[in-house]
């Protein structure tokens, strides 16, 4: 399992990082950002969409802070889960990511920007050559999607991050930065179809931090994750719910691992008048997982009703 050679850049500051990115963009060189590396490195080992340059955020000081209202992109999931400073809902989701070993390295930024996953795609180069590739990594062959053949536009790889839905229901804001300066966007609006686009990050941009509203400590909720094993596994489906203490009318629900992006279900909640069962059914109706993770889509879709119900339990 050898990665192809790439040049690793180590900016010491955010400004440095932007300068390096701008330089590479200008030179027409492709690159990836790397934070903890727990997502990128396995993909590189499998030769999936590797780039000649990688910019690491690891040496930039001060971007791993954790407080109730602000979390830096390099904050380790272990510290989020165990440190006692993050919102309990975010900590709960972080504690359910992968294994303790991976949480020590993995970061919030990396988890939010996680590459989408698909069992036709997350395979070695040799394996993917045996299916003649797929369009998320077609190696120049113009291959078709293997999940839903005969359509070559949409990538249906699944977003399997755990933390995004909790930040969505807490109404967090993502702070992005790049050669063109900073900009802020609600986490709820950060993700963008499809499985290849994944999010609104522009070339050269990276997520610097996430802020949560000032009243976030008044919000409570839960995150429920479906997985076969209580360690290692990515979510097969996940649901987060949050509401302001004592005021169920503020209920927000978001799901993950069902589609190419995590989604907040404001519309489904609105039409259900606070009836949890109705919310579950509405989300069930509006979600359509595909067959590209360990468990079959019909099951995952049905489970979202149970997960949402359990996340909404007071």
């Amino acid at each position, binding site marked *: 399992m050898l990665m192809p050679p790439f040049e690793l850049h180590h900016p010491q500051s955010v400004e440095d990082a932007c300068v390096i990115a701008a330089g590479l963009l200008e030179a027409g060189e492709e690159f990836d950002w790397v934070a903890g590396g727990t997502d990128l490195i396995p993909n590189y080992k499998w030769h999936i969409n590797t780039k000649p340059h990688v910019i690491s955020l690891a040496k930039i000081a001060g971007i791993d802070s954790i407080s109730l209202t602000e979390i830096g992109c390099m904050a380790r999931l272990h510290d989020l889960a165990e440190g006692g400073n993050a919102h309990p809902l975010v900590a709960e989701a972080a504690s359910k990511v992968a294994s303790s070993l991976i949480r020590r390295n993995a970061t919030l930024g990396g988890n939010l920007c996680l590459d989408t996953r698909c069992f036709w795609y997350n395979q070695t180069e040799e394996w993917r050559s045996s299916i003649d590739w797929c369009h998320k990594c077609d190696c120049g062959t113009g291959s078709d999607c293997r999940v839903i053949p005969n359509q070559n536009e949409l990538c249906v790889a699944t977003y399997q991050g755990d933390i995004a839905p909790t930040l969505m229901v807490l109404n967090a804001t993502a702070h992005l930065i790049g050669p063109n300066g900073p900009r802020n966007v609600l986490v709820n609006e950060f993700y963008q179809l499809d499985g290849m686009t994944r999010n609104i990050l522009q070339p050269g941009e990276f997520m610097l931090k996430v802020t949560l509203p000032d009243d976030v400590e008044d919000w409570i909720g839960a995150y429920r994750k479906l997985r076969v094993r209580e360690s290692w596994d990515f979510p097969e489906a996940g649901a987060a719910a949050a509401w302001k203490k004592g005021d169920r009318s503020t209920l927000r629900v978001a799901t993950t691992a069902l589609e190419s992006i995590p989604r907040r279900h404001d519309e489904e909640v609105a039409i259900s008048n606070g009836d949890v069962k109705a919310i579950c059914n509405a989300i069930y109706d509006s979600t359509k997982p595909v067959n590209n993770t*360990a468990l079959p889509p019909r099951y995952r879709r049905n489970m979202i009703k149970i997960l949402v119900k359990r996340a909404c339990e007071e």
Partner: protein
Amino acid sequence: MTDGYVQQPGSNTDVRVDGKRVAGKIKFNPPGSGGSRPEMADRDMDFIPEVEGGNESQPAGQHLHDKYRTGTSVGKRTPLVDGNAKVTGQAWYGDDVRLPNEIIGRIVRSPHHYAKVKSIDTSKAEALPGVLAVSTGADAPQRFGVLPVTKDEHAMAVEKVRHVGDLVACVAAIDEPTAREAAALIEVEYEVLDAVHDPKKGLLDVDDPIHWRGQYHIGSTNVQKRVFQEFGDRSKLEQARATHHGKWKFMGVNHGFTEPHAVVAHWDSNGRLQLYTPQQVPHYAHRALATVLDVPMHQVNVIRTFVGGGFGGKSDPFPHEMCAAILARKAGRPVRITFDREEVFWVNRGRHPSHIEVQMFADEDARISGFEIDALIDGGGFASFGHVTSYYNGVLATAPYELGSFHYTGARVWTNKPASGAMRGHGAVNTRCAIEVGMDDLAEKLQVDPIDLRLANLLPPHSKTITGFRITSNGMRQALERVREGSQWDSKFRKLPLGKGIGIGCGFFISGSGLPIHWDPNKFPHATVHIQIDMDGGVTVHTGAADIGQGSTTAIAQVVAEVLALPLEMIHVRSHESDTSPVDLGSYSSRVTFMNANAAISAALEIREQLVDAASGILDMPAEYLILNDRRIYSKRDPAIGVSYLEALHKSQEDKGALIASGAYRTPPMGGVHKGAAAGLAPAYSFSAYVAEVDVDVETGLIKCTDVWAAHDCGKALNPLAVEGQIIGSCHMGLGQVLSEQMVYGRTGHLQNPNLLDYKIPSVHEMPNVTPIIIESCDPEGPFGAKEAGEGPLLPILPAVVNAVYDAIGIRINDLPLTPDKVWAAIAKKMKREDIAEAQDLPTPRLDFSELQQKIVQRSSQHGGRDSRRQRSEDTDPYINGVLFGFDPTVPPEDQDGDWKIAVRPTSEQLEGLGLAGSAWTKIEQRKMEDGK
């Protein structure tokens, strides 16, 4: 009783009358240390059997080896002797071998399921700077295979590739990137053929079968092996009081060992091949290498590295071992090949994906009037151990229960997948699961307790199964009784609330295969062990037994230590090289403790005799008055009269130097004469019973196994620590197969999860609390009474969990693994069928005893007395399967009942009614076609 040694013979004084030193009479200390503790320890009477005057109780009777017990090591919780090397990182596994000048080999694999190799162009790869050797199938035309009867593998594809990942060519280069680049430059032209993925399709005639066996080929199908066995009287099945019918699907599972395959091949300066490989069975690799490389066996030295887990997955000779050797020969430099995890899945040899159908019948007395089993197993691209697996799927279900009849049809088919092979519990696991779930269902239909039903139908110790296997010791009854008690079964079974369940399962497994597959057991032993002791007193034991983490080295060291009454640290087991190890069949079929420890005991006894003779001479005391204890040999009556081990050793070394002894083990003659009678034949069998408790989330279908009470009869625990480790490890492995592990082949036939993220081995969070319970039935032929504990303990966990799930939710699911989606779908189906709105309202099964319950309790109580007497050899009357049905054990049942059959081929009338696998018998062998058919 000398106090040291002198340089010259003569007077022992070294001081002259005038007080000066006598010339040439320098005293020096005797060589050897005799161990790290200066004082002899007391005899440990707690580990000396009652019959020898010790405190170790012998409920299962006495043993031939009792008189050699010294209280030194046997029966004591002993950390494995190679444990230090492993935890300090000094153990050298396959990929730890580094030879000077070594280069890296890489294998080119097929991207197609099934294709003819039309041409291979290696010129670009050869031209790449840094590439030192390239090889293709043309370099190694000889076929090999683990079983002599089914040699169907090549080092690399000669004509066809048979699955995605099959070997086509290989390259060696100065480093891994170059080797990978070169591999990508090899151009192969294929003609793609129609692949077979579904084993059911493997039964059909096709244009181009995956292998061609000439006149022995069955039709033009992909059937590699078919088996038919019929024993007993099936005429009474129609009057059954209860019947069970189970149609099962088992997904294939992989061993999932920690260490991927790795090999280093080096042709030394004398032109001999030194091959380093983590092998369970170095001897078969040795044979195959000699064949494929076309060199005599003595020109090959197979060096078994430490093995990072085997479980059956490292017991075949492997094509990559040949590739490394071929590349090394071409390049003139050592070649190393290390697998990625994906390659481990390509080479596979895991448990066969199987379709198994069982029908089981119980009569009005709750006796088992018949088992009817049909097993279609998916062999993948090669035969591997499949010939044996085809038998095991049936014949290993013939005990521990006494049967009125037994009918088995089995077939193994080739498909275009990585080859299936032997995996822990070889061939027995899936059928056992089906059978034990069937027993649960029969009990429910008879309205009796399933443990009592089992207890009332057990074969006793020293009996014969329906197919003629000779059972010696048998701790099945105690195992059942102990788990019943430990789990508080009677207060839980069919009484727990919805979502909570408890279940029982039993196991039966061979302790060593009775037939060494490469030679006649009457001419050559199964196992040979050499012992050598030189002046330093350290005992070197040479054995070919491959320690694959199961602790075979420790077990052999322990029995030698026990016989010679020496501390374990003085026993040095050498088992890595075929140059120094006696030929051994290796670590499979749970044979090592039984066979190698027996051979080691026999060699150690030879040494013991020499030592005792020497001591007897020095002490001028008859040998029978002497006992051995902790580095001393002394008088039974007065421990002060004795000699040290070293003194006795040096005395016995006089005039000949090092003491050398050789011990061997061979199985006694046994078994029937019908075709296939040797399959499943073993010198002893292990028995086990587990109770599992589960929590089922009825809304999500997620199963959590919370507790397991695991009783295993290993005859005698030479090392209880290791036995418990095997039991707990088996639980983990079996839980994987029953709950989450599966090799998933997608709609295109590709293996979708060849990595350890998606191939879901349970994590520590999924592990239940396991209470290991060791049952000691004292096997008369086992070393100090021991039998196997490495594979049998895996069997019961599967059915115990499946039965517990039924107890929890009232649904039987016959499709493993029980992933949450399957459980949820089954619950949803039942809710729909029975019009239940909420999963929380599902009914749970309850038990009202029928009049049979009392009857079987009475019967099992009588049998309990019988079994205890037979176990202790107080009752030595013959017992054959059939006595429960009124047969006379001294006369073969076929002579007592005209309807009693022994058949290994179906009659033409039977052909139509055979099951899925049985339908393979409707095809005609090629050689019989030529006879005009």
